[in-house]
């Protein structure tokens, strides 16, 4: 069940812009139960120096994972998504994602390996505005668990 190694190093063209709305930020903040006013109230965000409401730090996954899905769900990669758990995740922010952003992502497959029978893939998403301003880099490592393993 090894993943197709030909994907290592593959880089994808920039994704179609993802337009970040106040409503989507509101929905995400509500889903994680976080009522920080910077996510919900333009004035509160403005008092912190932001031109509009900002998104919670991990909101970036909604943008980067959608972009990475062009790899993850490519049948020729050979990943069984029901066996996938998240292994590692990191975000490096130039600035917070905020309402009004038009974000595009360049996805690269950084690594594919096997450890203890688990297939492991690391993708990197460089998230920038359509004007070329870097916003966040997201590194995601997904683990497709070997058939006889318990979840981790």
């Amino acid at each position, binding site marked *: 069940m090894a993943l197709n190694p030909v994907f290592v190093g593959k880089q994808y063209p920039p994704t179609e812009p993802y337009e970040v709305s106040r409503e989507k930020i509101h929905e995400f903040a509500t*889903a994680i139960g976080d009522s920080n006013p910077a996510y919900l109230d333009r004035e509160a965000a403005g008092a912190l120096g932001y031109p509009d409401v900002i998104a919670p730090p991990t909101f970036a996954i909604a943008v980067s994972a959608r972009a990475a899905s062009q790899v993850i769900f490519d049948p020729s990669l050979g990943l069984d998504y029901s066996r996938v758990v*998240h292994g590692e995740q990191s975000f490096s922010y130039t600035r917070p994602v905020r309402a009004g952003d038009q974000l595009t992502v360049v996805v690269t497959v950084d690594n594919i390996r096997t450890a203890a029978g688990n297939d492991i893939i690391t993708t990197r998403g460089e998230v920038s505005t359509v004007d070329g301003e870097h916003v966040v880099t997201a*590194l995601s490592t997904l683990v497709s668990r070997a058939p006889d393993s318990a979840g981790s």
Partner: protein
Amino acid sequence: MAANVRYDDVRVGTELPAQTFEIHRLDLVKYAGASGDFNVIHWNERIAKSVGLPDVIAHGMYTMAQAVRVVTDWLGDPGAVVDYSVRFTRPVVVPDDDTGAVLEVSGAVIEKREDKQAVVELLARAGGAKVLAKARAVVQLE
């Protein structure tokens, strides 16, 4: 940035206020919709068990989102988080009952850097086990 916390008031060892989060099945359903991650293991017990999991498990990203609240609530300004990374070591199992799962998160400053940045290490436990490792947030202070 307008963080509540001043660089000069922080030292290595400064503890952040700990928090406890309850996680119920409904939270995972909401999170699936909001994040776009509809992996069946986060809402379908039958399939979760069929792939060898003890039960439905929380999205790792849901746990990651909760854990950093210890940092963002401390700071006031969530935009002061300039780097955040975790390793997921154990699944957070979310049973279909009235209790759900309980996630306990604490944090402490482990390093002060130049440019008024500090590194916070987070500890997250659920069901008696550590669920995150190397959970670190770098924050920009004033």
